Protein backbone atom coordinates (compact mmCIF):
# COMPACT_ATOMS: atom_id res chain seq x y z
CA UNK A 1 0.00 0.00 0.00
CA UNK A 2 1.26 3.51 -0.71
CA UNK A 3 2.12 5.61 2.29
CA UNK A 4 0.43 8.95 2.78
CA UNK A 5 3.70 10.67 1.89
CA UNK A 6 3.44 9.16 -1.63
CA UNK A 7 -0.15 10.28 -2.07
CA UNK A 8 -0.93 13.64 -3.64
CA UNK A 9 -3.36 15.76 -1.59
CA UNK A 10 -6.38 15.30 -3.91
CA UNK A 11 -6.24 11.52 -3.31
CA UNK A 12 -5.75 11.49 0.45
CA UNK A 13 -9.41 10.86 1.21
CA UNK A 14 -9.76 8.02 -1.33
CA UNK A 15 -9.64 4.30 -0.44
CA UNK A 16 -6.29 2.53 -0.37
CA UNK A 17 -7.01 0.61 -3.59
CA UNK A 18 -7.56 3.89 -5.46
CA UNK A 19 -4.34 5.37 -4.11
CA UNK A 20 -2.52 2.14 -5.03
CA UNK A 21 -3.97 2.33 -8.55
CA UNK A 22 -2.67 5.88 -8.88
CA UNK A 23 0.80 4.78 -7.79
CA UNK A 24 0.61 1.89 -10.24
CA UNK A 25 -0.30 4.20 -13.10
CA UNK A 26 2.55 6.55 -12.21
CA UNK A 27 5.05 3.64 -12.31
CA UNK A 28 3.79 1.66 -15.29
CA UNK A 29 1.46 4.00 -17.24
CA UNK A 30 -1.09 1.21 -17.01
CA UNK A 31 -4.33 2.79 -18.23
CA UNK A 32 -6.44 0.14 -16.49
CA UNK A 33 -5.07 1.49 -13.20
CA UNK A 34 -5.79 5.02 -14.37
CA UNK A 35 -9.42 4.09 -15.02
CA UNK A 36 -9.77 2.92 -11.40
CA UNK A 37 -8.80 6.44 -10.33
CA UNK A 38 -11.11 8.07 -12.88
CA UNK A 39 -14.12 5.97 -11.92
CA UNK A 40 -13.50 6.60 -8.22
CA UNK A 41 -13.46 10.34 -8.88
CA UNK A 42 -16.70 10.19 -10.89
CA UNK A 43 -18.39 8.37 -8.03
CA UNK A 44 -17.01 10.87 -5.57
CA UNK A 45 -18.29 13.95 -7.39
CA UNK A 46 -21.74 12.61 -8.19
CA UNK A 47 -23.86 15.35 -6.60
CA UNK A 48 -26.97 13.34 -5.84
CA UNK A 49 -25.21 10.62 -3.89
CA UNK A 50 -25.18 10.76 -0.10
CA UNK A 51 -22.20 12.50 1.39
CA UNK A 52 -21.33 9.45 3.41
CA UNK A 53 -22.12 6.53 1.16
CA UNK A 54 -20.87 4.94 -2.02
CA UNK A 55 -22.84 3.79 -5.03
CA UNK A 56 -22.49 0.77 -7.28
CA UNK A 57 -19.75 0.50 -9.85
CA UNK A 58 -20.01 2.60 -12.95
CA UNK A 59 -20.27 1.57 -16.57
CA UNK A 60 -18.47 3.46 -19.35
CA UNK A 61 -21.63 4.08 -21.36
CA UNK A 62 -23.42 5.91 -18.54
CA UNK A 63 -24.04 9.57 -19.30
CA UNK A 64 -22.77 11.98 -16.66
CA UNK A 65 -25.75 14.34 -16.71
CA UNK A 66 -28.70 12.27 -17.89
CA UNK A 67 -27.87 8.99 -16.13
CA UNK A 68 -25.77 9.97 -13.14
CA UNK A 69 -27.33 13.30 -12.15
CA UNK A 70 -24.29 15.47 -12.74
CA UNK A 71 -24.80 19.18 -13.28
CA UNK A 72 -22.30 21.49 -14.91
CA UNK A 73 -20.74 22.40 -11.56
CA UNK A 74 -20.17 18.75 -10.70
CA UNK A 75 -18.59 18.14 -14.12
CA UNK A 76 -16.35 21.16 -13.53
CA UNK A 77 -15.44 19.85 -10.06
CA UNK A 78 -14.50 16.46 -11.50
CA UNK A 79 -12.38 18.02 -14.21
CA UNK A 80 -10.66 20.28 -11.68
CA UNK A 81 -9.85 17.18 -9.62
CA UNK A 82 -7.96 15.74 -12.60
CA UNK A 83 -6.30 19.06 -13.35
CA UNK A 84 -5.11 19.30 -9.76
CA UNK A 85 -4.06 15.64 -9.52
CA UNK A 86 -2.18 15.48 -12.82
CA UNK A 87 -1.17 19.14 -13.11
CA UNK A 88 -2.80 19.64 -16.48
CA UNK A 89 -5.15 22.32 -17.79
CA UNK A 90 -8.37 21.34 -19.54
CA UNK A 91 -10.28 23.84 -21.67
CA UNK A 92 -14.00 24.54 -21.44
CA UNK A 93 -14.67 23.32 -24.97
CA UNK A 94 -12.95 20.03 -24.16
CA UNK A 95 -15.18 19.60 -21.09
CA UNK A 96 -18.33 20.32 -23.06
CA UNK A 97 -17.58 17.46 -25.45
CA UNK A 98 -17.53 14.86 -22.67
CA UNK A 99 -20.89 13.12 -22.26
CA UNK A 100 -20.21 9.69 -20.77
CA UNK A 101 -18.01 8.17 -18.10
CA UNK A 102 -16.09 6.35 -20.80
CA UNK A 103 -15.50 9.52 -22.83
CA UNK A 104 -14.18 11.24 -19.72
CA UNK A 105 -11.84 8.33 -19.01
CA UNK A 106 -10.60 8.22 -22.62
CA UNK A 107 -10.04 11.98 -22.63
CA UNK A 108 -7.98 11.98 -19.42
CA UNK A 109 -5.95 8.97 -20.57
CA UNK A 110 -5.27 10.64 -23.94
CA UNK A 111 -4.27 13.90 -22.29
CA UNK A 112 -1.82 12.11 -20.00
CA UNK A 113 -0.31 10.21 -22.92
CA UNK A 114 0.42 13.58 -24.52
CA UNK A 115 1.94 14.88 -21.28
CA UNK A 116 5.36 14.11 -19.85
CA UNK A 117 5.38 11.18 -17.38
CA UNK A 118 3.92 11.98 -13.99
CA UNK A 119 6.62 12.68 -11.40
Amino acid sequence: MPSSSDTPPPLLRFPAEVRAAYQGFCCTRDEAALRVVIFAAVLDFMPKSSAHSRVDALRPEQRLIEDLGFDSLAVAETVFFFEDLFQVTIKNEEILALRTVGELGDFVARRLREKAPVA
Partner: protein
Amino acid sequence: MSATPSSSRRPVVTGLGFITPIGNDRASVLASLREGRHGLAPVEFLGNPHLPVKLAGTVRDFDVSSTSSRDWTWPSRYAIPRETLRGLAPHGVFALCAIEQALAEAGLAPEAVAHDPGTGLFCASAGSARLLHHHLGQLDAARGERGNPMGVLSSISGTLNFNLGAHFHITGAVCGFVSACASSSHALGYACDEIRLGRLRRVIVVGAEEHNAETILPFAAMRALSAQSDPALASCPFDVARDGFVGAGGAVAVILEAADLAQARGAPVLAEFAGWGQSADGHSVAMSHPEGAGLRLAMQRALADAEVTPAQIDYVNAHATSTPVGDRAEALALRAVFTEGGARPRVSSTKGLTGHPLSMAGVMEAAFCTLALAEGFVPGNAHLRTADPVCEGLDLPRESVAVAPGWVLNNSSGFGGSNVCHVLRRWAG
Protein backbone atom coordinates in the same frame (compact mmCIF):
# COMPACT_ATOMS: atom_id res chain seq x y z
CA MET B 1 -46.20 51.43 13.07
CA SER B 2 -49.68 51.50 14.45
CA ALA B 3 -50.11 50.85 18.16
CA THR B 4 -51.87 47.56 17.56
CA PRO B 5 -50.67 45.95 14.36
CA SER B 6 -52.89 43.20 13.11
CA SER B 7 -51.71 39.70 13.85
CA SER B 8 -50.92 39.25 10.16
CA ARG B 9 -48.24 41.95 10.50
CA ARG B 10 -47.00 41.10 14.00
CA PRO B 11 -43.71 39.16 13.95
CA VAL B 12 -43.23 36.41 16.49
CA VAL B 13 -40.45 33.91 17.15
CA THR B 14 -41.49 30.29 16.71
CA GLY B 15 -38.21 28.41 16.42
CA LEU B 16 -34.59 28.58 17.55
CA GLY B 17 -31.55 26.58 16.48
CA PHE B 18 -28.18 26.60 18.23
CA ILE B 19 -24.72 25.39 17.25
CA THR B 20 -22.75 27.43 19.75
CA PRO B 21 -19.81 27.27 22.14
CA ILE B 22 -22.28 26.85 25.03
CA GLY B 23 -24.36 24.10 23.48
CA ASN B 24 -25.68 22.54 20.30
CA ASP B 25 -29.35 22.48 21.22
CA ARG B 26 -31.84 24.57 23.11
CA ALA B 27 -31.69 22.56 26.33
CA SER B 28 -27.91 22.71 26.70
CA VAL B 29 -27.79 26.42 25.79
CA LEU B 30 -30.48 27.15 28.34
CA ALA B 31 -28.59 25.23 31.03
CA SER B 32 -25.34 27.07 30.18
CA LEU B 33 -27.05 30.47 30.39
CA ARG B 34 -28.75 29.66 33.67
CA GLU B 35 -25.70 28.07 35.30
CA GLY B 36 -23.06 30.38 33.85
CA ARG B 37 -21.15 27.64 31.98
CA HIS B 38 -18.75 29.13 29.46
CA GLY B 39 -17.75 27.62 26.11
CA LEU B 40 -14.20 28.92 25.76
CA ALA B 41 -11.45 26.41 24.96
CA PRO B 42 -7.67 26.55 24.45
CA VAL B 43 -6.55 27.08 20.84
CA GLU B 44 -3.17 27.19 19.14
CA PHE B 45 -3.42 28.94 15.79
CA LEU B 46 -1.01 28.24 12.92
CA GLY B 47 0.94 25.85 15.13
CA ASN B 48 2.46 28.77 16.96
CA PRO B 49 2.30 28.55 20.75
CA HIS B 50 3.74 32.05 21.11
CA LEU B 51 0.76 33.91 19.69
CA PRO B 52 -1.08 36.13 22.16
CA VAL B 53 -4.37 34.37 21.36
CA LYS B 54 -4.95 31.45 23.67
CA LEU B 55 -8.71 30.89 23.70
CA ALA B 56 -11.72 30.77 21.40
CA GLY B 57 -15.41 30.00 21.72
CA THR B 58 -15.39 26.69 19.89
CA VAL B 59 -18.11 24.33 18.66
CA ARG B 60 -18.07 20.70 19.84
CA ASP B 61 -19.10 17.55 17.89
CA PHE B 62 -18.20 19.03 14.48
CA ASP B 63 -14.87 18.81 12.64
CA VAL B 64 -14.83 21.20 9.71
CA SER B 65 -11.18 22.14 9.98
CA SER B 66 -10.09 20.65 6.64
CA THR B 67 -10.18 22.72 3.45
CA SER B 68 -11.92 19.74 1.81
CA SER B 69 -15.56 19.27 2.70
CA ARG B 70 -15.08 15.51 2.18
CA ASP B 71 -13.15 15.35 5.44
CA TRP B 72 -15.78 17.10 7.55
CA THR B 73 -17.81 15.37 10.21
CA TRP B 74 -20.98 16.47 11.99
CA PRO B 75 -23.58 14.86 14.24
CA SER B 76 -25.31 12.05 12.39
CA ARG B 77 -28.81 13.40 13.09
CA TYR B 78 -28.24 16.03 10.40
CA ALA B 79 -28.40 14.88 6.79
CA ILE B 80 -26.27 16.91 4.39
CA PRO B 81 -26.38 15.62 0.81
CA ARG B 82 -23.30 15.76 -1.37
CA GLU B 83 -25.08 18.23 -3.66
CA THR B 84 -25.24 20.71 -0.77
CA LEU B 85 -21.96 19.86 0.91
CA ARG B 86 -19.89 20.68 -2.19
CA GLY B 87 -20.62 24.42 -1.95
CA LEU B 88 -20.67 24.91 1.79
CA ALA B 89 -18.16 26.81 3.85
CA PRO B 90 -17.28 25.28 7.22
CA HIS B 91 -19.67 27.67 8.94
CA GLY B 92 -22.32 26.73 6.37
CA VAL B 93 -22.46 23.30 8.01
CA PHE B 94 -23.13 24.96 11.36
CA ALA B 95 -25.82 27.15 9.76
CA LEU B 96 -27.61 24.31 8.00
CA CYS B 97 -27.80 22.31 11.23
CA ALA B 98 -29.03 25.35 13.20
CA ILE B 99 -31.79 25.93 10.63
CA GLU B 100 -32.86 22.28 10.76
CA GLN B 101 -33.19 22.60 14.55
CA ALA B 102 -35.14 25.86 14.33
CA LEU B 103 -37.55 24.50 11.73
CA ALA B 104 -38.16 21.42 13.87
CA GLU B 105 -38.92 23.55 16.94
CA ALA B 106 -41.30 25.67 14.87
CA GLY B 107 -43.09 22.52 13.76
CA LEU B 108 -42.12 23.09 10.13
CA ALA B 109 -41.06 20.23 7.90
CA PRO B 110 -38.54 21.29 5.23
CA GLU B 111 -41.28 20.69 2.65
CA ALA B 112 -43.40 23.39 4.30
CA VAL B 113 -40.88 26.13 3.53
CA ALA B 114 -39.65 24.75 0.19
CA HIS B 115 -41.04 26.69 -2.80
CA ASP B 116 -43.24 28.78 -0.49
CA PRO B 117 -43.32 32.37 -1.81
CA GLY B 118 -44.15 33.60 1.69
CA THR B 119 -40.92 32.30 3.23
CA GLY B 120 -37.61 34.14 3.02
CA LEU B 121 -34.06 33.46 4.21
CA PHE B 122 -31.86 36.25 5.59
CA CYS B 123 -28.26 35.36 6.40
CA ALA B 124 -25.23 36.93 8.00
CA SER B 125 -21.60 35.88 7.94
CA ALA B 126 -18.28 37.33 6.94
CA GLY B 127 -17.68 34.45 4.53
CA SER B 128 -14.96 31.88 4.96
CA ALA B 129 -11.58 33.55 5.10
CA ARG B 130 -10.04 30.08 5.44
CA LEU B 131 -11.49 28.70 2.22
CA LEU B 132 -10.95 31.97 0.35
CA HIS B 133 -7.30 31.89 1.35
CA HIS B 134 -7.02 28.25 0.31
CA HIS B 135 -8.72 28.65 -3.06
CA LEU B 136 -6.80 31.79 -3.97
CA GLY B 137 -3.60 30.00 -2.96
CA GLN B 138 -4.42 27.20 -5.42
CA LEU B 139 -5.19 29.71 -8.15
CA ASP B 140 -1.98 31.57 -7.44
CA ALA B 141 0.12 28.37 -7.46
CA ALA B 142 -1.26 27.52 -10.91
CA ARG B 143 -0.57 31.08 -12.08
CA GLY B 144 -4.28 31.53 -12.65
CA GLU B 145 -4.61 28.62 -15.07
CA ARG B 146 -6.96 26.52 -12.92
CA GLY B 147 -8.99 26.87 -9.77
CA ASN B 148 -11.62 25.06 -7.77
CA PRO B 149 -15.04 25.61 -9.41
CA MET B 150 -16.68 25.78 -5.97
CA GLY B 151 -14.13 28.29 -4.70
CA VAL B 152 -16.36 31.35 -5.03
CA LEU B 153 -19.58 29.78 -3.80
CA SER B 154 -17.99 28.23 -0.72
CA SER B 155 -16.01 31.18 0.51
CA ILE B 156 -17.18 34.69 -0.33
CA SER B 157 -19.46 36.70 1.86
CA GLY B 158 -22.89 35.50 0.78
CA THR B 159 -21.94 31.83 0.82
CA LEU B 160 -24.72 31.15 3.33
CA ASN B 161 -27.39 32.76 1.14
CA PHE B 162 -26.35 30.93 -2.04
CA ASN B 163 -26.08 27.51 -0.51
CA LEU B 164 -28.87 27.50 2.05
CA GLY B 165 -31.34 29.24 -0.24
CA ALA B 166 -30.82 26.46 -2.78
CA HIS B 167 -30.75 23.67 -0.20
CA PHE B 168 -34.02 24.65 1.47
CA HIS B 169 -35.61 25.75 -1.86
CA ILE B 170 -36.44 29.23 -0.57
CA THR B 171 -38.43 31.30 -3.06
CA GLY B 172 -39.82 34.27 -1.09
CA ALA B 173 -36.53 36.16 -0.75
CA VAL B 174 -32.88 35.30 -0.09
CA CYS B 175 -30.55 38.00 1.12
CA GLY B 176 -27.30 38.53 3.01
CA PHE B 177 -26.28 41.25 5.43
CA VAL B 178 -22.78 42.57 5.97
CA SER B 179 -22.30 45.06 8.79
CA ALA B 180 -19.64 43.16 10.72
CA CYS B 181 -20.76 42.47 14.27
CA ALA B 182 -24.21 43.99 13.66
CA SER B 183 -24.88 41.84 10.56
CA SER B 184 -27.30 39.30 11.92
CA SER B 185 -29.04 42.00 13.96
CA HIS B 186 -29.69 43.83 10.71
CA ALA B 187 -30.95 40.57 9.20
CA LEU B 188 -33.48 40.18 12.03
CA GLY B 189 -34.54 43.81 11.85
CA TYR B 190 -35.22 43.72 8.14
CA ALA B 191 -36.96 40.36 8.53
CA CYS B 192 -39.29 42.07 10.99
CA ASP B 193 -39.95 44.83 8.47
CA GLU B 194 -40.71 42.39 5.66
CA ILE B 195 -43.37 40.72 7.81
CA ARG B 196 -44.77 44.05 8.98
CA LEU B 197 -44.99 45.26 5.39
CA GLY B 198 -46.79 42.10 4.38
CA ARG B 199 -44.14 41.17 1.83
CA LEU B 200 -43.21 37.94 3.58
CA ARG B 201 -45.08 35.79 6.05
CA ARG B 202 -42.07 34.00 7.49
CA VAL B 203 -38.30 34.60 7.50
CA ILE B 204 -35.57 32.18 8.50
CA VAL B 205 -32.74 34.30 9.94
CA VAL B 206 -29.34 32.71 10.44
CA GLY B 207 -25.94 34.02 11.48
CA ALA B 208 -22.78 31.92 11.42
CA GLU B 209 -19.03 32.25 11.73
CA GLU B 210 -15.91 30.06 11.86
CA HIS B 211 -13.56 29.92 14.83
CA ASN B 212 -10.40 29.13 12.89
CA ALA B 213 -7.18 31.13 12.59
CA GLU B 214 -8.17 32.82 9.34
CA THR B 215 -11.34 34.30 10.87
CA ILE B 216 -10.11 35.16 14.36
CA LEU B 217 -6.39 35.88 14.16
CA PRO B 218 -6.64 39.04 12.01
CA PHE B 219 -8.36 40.70 14.99
CA ALA B 220 -5.17 40.15 17.01
CA ALA B 221 -3.41 42.41 14.52
CA MET B 222 -5.93 45.09 15.47
CA ARG B 223 -5.08 44.51 19.16
CA ALA B 224 -8.75 43.68 19.71
CA LEU B 225 -8.33 40.20 21.25
CA SER B 226 -7.73 39.20 24.84
CA ALA B 227 -4.29 37.71 25.47
CA GLN B 228 -5.46 35.83 28.57
CA SER B 229 -5.30 32.05 28.77
CA ASP B 230 -7.69 31.76 31.72
CA PRO B 231 -11.32 31.82 30.53
CA ALA B 232 -12.35 33.56 33.73
CA LEU B 233 -10.08 36.47 32.86
CA ALA B 234 -10.31 36.46 29.08
CA SER B 235 -13.91 37.42 28.35
CA CYS B 236 -15.19 39.65 31.13
CA PRO B 237 -17.43 42.37 29.67
CA PHE B 238 -17.77 45.54 31.77
CA ASP B 239 -14.97 44.40 34.11
CA VAL B 240 -12.33 46.95 34.97
CA ALA B 241 -9.62 44.45 33.91
CA ARG B 242 -11.08 43.51 30.50
CA ASP B 243 -8.41 43.39 27.78
CA GLY B 244 -10.17 42.41 24.56
CA PHE B 245 -12.63 39.92 23.16
CA VAL B 246 -12.39 36.16 22.64
CA GLY B 247 -13.31 35.13 19.10
CA ALA B 248 -16.00 32.49 18.66
CA GLY B 249 -17.89 30.57 15.98
CA GLY B 250 -21.01 28.53 15.37
CA ALA B 251 -24.46 29.33 14.06
CA VAL B 252 -27.82 30.39 15.40
CA ALA B 253 -31.11 30.37 13.49
CA VAL B 254 -34.37 32.09 14.37
CA ILE B 255 -37.74 31.52 12.70
CA LEU B 256 -39.71 34.77 12.58
CA GLU B 257 -43.25 34.62 11.29
CA ALA B 258 -46.52 36.51 11.31
CA ALA B 259 -48.45 35.84 14.50
CA ASP B 260 -51.61 34.74 12.70
CA LEU B 261 -49.67 32.26 10.60
CA ALA B 262 -48.05 30.78 13.69
CA GLN B 263 -51.35 30.57 15.52
CA ALA B 264 -53.16 29.04 12.56
CA ARG B 265 -50.49 26.31 12.47
CA GLY B 266 -50.73 25.79 16.21
CA ALA B 267 -47.02 26.57 16.49
CA PRO B 268 -45.57 27.47 19.88
CA VAL B 269 -44.89 31.22 20.09
CA LEU B 270 -41.71 31.83 22.07
CA ALA B 271 -41.71 35.64 22.04
CA GLU B 272 -42.94 38.65 20.11
CA PHE B 273 -40.42 40.62 18.09
CA ALA B 274 -41.80 44.01 19.09
CA GLY B 275 -39.55 46.42 17.25
CA TRP B 276 -36.10 47.49 16.30
CA GLY B 277 -33.97 50.53 15.60
CA GLN B 278 -30.66 51.34 14.02
CA SER B 279 -28.24 54.22 13.72
CA ALA B 280 -24.66 54.95 12.72
CA ASP B 281 -21.88 56.63 14.68
CA GLY B 282 -20.38 58.54 11.76
CA HIS B 283 -17.21 58.53 13.77
CA SER B 284 -14.54 55.87 13.17
CA VAL B 285 -13.90 52.88 10.94
CA ALA B 286 -13.40 50.61 13.94
CA MET B 287 -13.80 52.39 17.26
CA SER B 288 -17.12 53.07 18.96
CA HIS B 289 -18.19 56.66 19.48
CA PRO B 290 -16.60 57.57 22.86
CA GLU B 291 -19.94 58.42 24.47
CA GLY B 292 -21.88 55.71 22.62
CA ALA B 293 -23.96 58.36 20.85
CA GLY B 294 -24.95 56.10 17.96
CA LEU B 295 -25.90 53.18 20.16
CA ARG B 296 -27.95 55.51 22.36
CA LEU B 297 -29.92 56.66 19.33
CA ALA B 298 -30.44 53.09 18.12
CA MET B 299 -31.78 52.06 21.54
CA GLN B 300 -34.14 55.05 21.61
CA ARG B 301 -35.39 54.26 18.13
CA ALA B 302 -35.97 50.60 19.00
CA LEU B 303 -37.92 51.57 22.12
CA ALA B 304 -40.00 54.08 20.15
CA ASP B 305 -40.68 51.52 17.43
CA ALA B 306 -41.92 49.02 20.01
CA GLU B 307 -43.85 51.78 21.79
CA VAL B 308 -42.25 50.97 25.11
CA THR B 309 -40.61 53.23 27.69
CA PRO B 310 -37.14 52.69 29.18
CA ALA B 311 -38.78 51.96 32.52
CA GLN B 312 -40.69 49.02 31.01
CA ILE B 313 -37.54 47.24 29.90
CA ASP B 314 -36.63 44.49 32.37
CA TYR B 315 -33.45 43.18 30.77
CA VAL B 316 -30.83 44.39 28.30
CA ASN B 317 -28.57 41.89 26.54
CA ALA B 318 -25.59 44.16 25.93
CA HIS B 319 -23.32 43.95 22.94
CA ALA B 320 -20.30 44.41 25.29
CA THR B 321 -17.51 42.24 23.91
CA SER B 322 -14.93 42.85 26.65
CA THR B 323 -12.95 45.51 24.81
CA PRO B 324 -11.94 48.58 26.81
CA VAL B 325 -13.38 51.14 24.37
CA GLY B 326 -16.53 49.36 23.22
CA ASP B 327 -17.80 48.38 26.65
CA ARG B 328 -17.20 51.90 27.95
CA ALA B 329 -19.19 53.43 25.10
CA GLU B 330 -22.07 51.03 25.65
CA ALA B 331 -22.12 51.65 29.40
CA LEU B 332 -22.37 55.38 28.79
CA ALA B 333 -25.14 54.87 26.22
CA LEU B 334 -27.08 52.62 28.62
CA ARG B 335 -26.74 55.20 31.39
CA ALA B 336 -28.01 57.92 29.07
CA VAL B 337 -31.06 55.93 27.96
CA PHE B 338 -31.95 54.26 31.25
CA THR B 339 -30.15 55.47 34.37
CA GLU B 340 -30.53 59.17 33.74
CA GLY B 341 -34.29 58.72 33.38
CA GLY B 342 -34.55 56.64 36.52
CA ALA B 343 -34.90 53.25 34.81
CA ARG B 344 -32.82 50.33 36.05
CA PRO B 345 -33.15 47.19 33.93
CA ARG B 346 -30.84 44.27 34.56
CA VAL B 347 -27.97 44.36 32.06
CA SER B 348 -25.69 41.50 31.06
CA SER B 349 -23.38 40.54 28.25
CA THR B 350 -23.55 36.82 27.52
CA LYS B 351 -20.25 37.08 25.64
CA GLY B 352 -18.57 36.25 28.95
CA LEU B 353 -19.87 32.73 28.27
CA THR B 354 -19.74 32.49 24.49
CA GLY B 355 -16.95 34.78 23.41
CA HIS B 356 -17.73 37.05 20.47
CA PRO B 357 -18.97 35.34 17.32
CA LEU B 358 -18.82 38.45 15.11
CA SER B 359 -21.61 38.47 12.48
CA MET B 360 -23.52 35.84 14.40
CA ALA B 361 -23.63 37.75 17.69
CA GLY B 362 -26.88 39.64 17.12
CA VAL B 363 -29.10 36.71 16.20
CA MET B 364 -27.48 34.54 18.87
CA GLU B 365 -28.25 37.09 21.55
CA ALA B 366 -31.78 37.70 20.22
CA ALA B 367 -32.25 33.93 20.61
CA PHE B 368 -30.88 34.14 24.17
CA CYS B 369 -33.36 36.96 24.86
CA THR B 370 -36.13 34.76 23.48
CA LEU B 371 -35.10 32.00 25.86
CA ALA B 372 -35.08 34.49 28.76
CA LEU B 373 -38.65 35.54 27.88
CA ALA B 374 -39.93 32.03 27.25
CA GLU B 375 -38.25 30.42 30.25
CA GLY B 376 -38.47 33.27 32.76
CA PHE B 377 -34.93 34.20 33.73
CA VAL B 378 -32.22 36.81 33.14
CA PRO B 379 -28.68 35.68 32.19
CA GLY B 380 -25.83 36.96 34.33
CA ASN B 381 -22.47 38.57 33.65
CA ALA B 382 -20.07 35.64 33.78
CA HIS B 383 -16.52 36.51 34.82
CA LEU B 384 -17.45 40.00 36.03
CA ARG B 385 -15.53 40.65 39.23
CA THR B 386 -15.08 44.40 39.54
CA ALA B 387 -17.33 46.50 37.38
CA ASP B 388 -15.67 49.39 35.59
CA PRO B 389 -16.63 52.62 37.39
CA VAL B 390 -18.06 53.83 34.09
CA CYS B 391 -20.91 51.34 34.71
CA GLU B 392 -22.05 53.19 37.83
CA GLY B 393 -25.82 52.97 38.17
CA LEU B 394 -26.18 49.90 35.92
CA ASP B 395 -27.60 46.71 37.42
CA LEU B 396 -25.10 44.05 36.39
CA PRO B 397 -26.03 40.72 37.99
CA ARG B 398 -23.10 38.28 38.21
CA GLU B 399 -25.29 35.20 38.08
CA SER B 400 -28.54 34.48 36.30
CA VAL B 401 -31.67 35.71 38.03
CA ALA B 402 -34.85 33.66 38.24
CA VAL B 403 -37.14 36.55 37.43
CA ALA B 404 -39.31 36.51 34.30
CA PRO B 405 -38.74 39.58 32.14
CA GLY B 406 -41.64 41.05 30.21
CA TRP B 407 -39.70 43.24 27.78
CA VAL B 408 -36.05 42.88 26.73
CA LEU B 409 -33.66 44.92 24.62
CA ASN B 410 -30.87 43.35 22.56
CA ASN B 411 -27.94 45.59 21.53
CA SER B 412 -25.46 45.16 18.68
CA SER B 413 -22.69 47.30 17.25
CA GLY B 414 -20.40 46.71 14.30
CA PHE B 415 -17.36 48.21 12.62
CA GLY B 416 -17.93 51.61 11.11
CA GLY B 417 -20.35 52.46 13.89
CA SER B 418 -23.40 50.42 12.79
CA ASN B 419 -25.73 50.08 15.76
CA VAL B 420 -28.81 47.85 15.82
CA CYS B 421 -31.17 47.19 18.73
CA HIS B 422 -34.13 44.83 19.01
CA VAL B 423 -37.03 44.86 21.45
CA LEU B 424 -38.63 41.52 22.27
CA ARG B 425 -41.66 40.93 24.44
CA ARG B 426 -43.00 37.99 26.38
CA TRP B 427 -45.81 36.47 24.35
CA ALA B 428 -49.17 37.00 25.93
CA GLY B 429 -51.23 35.84 22.96
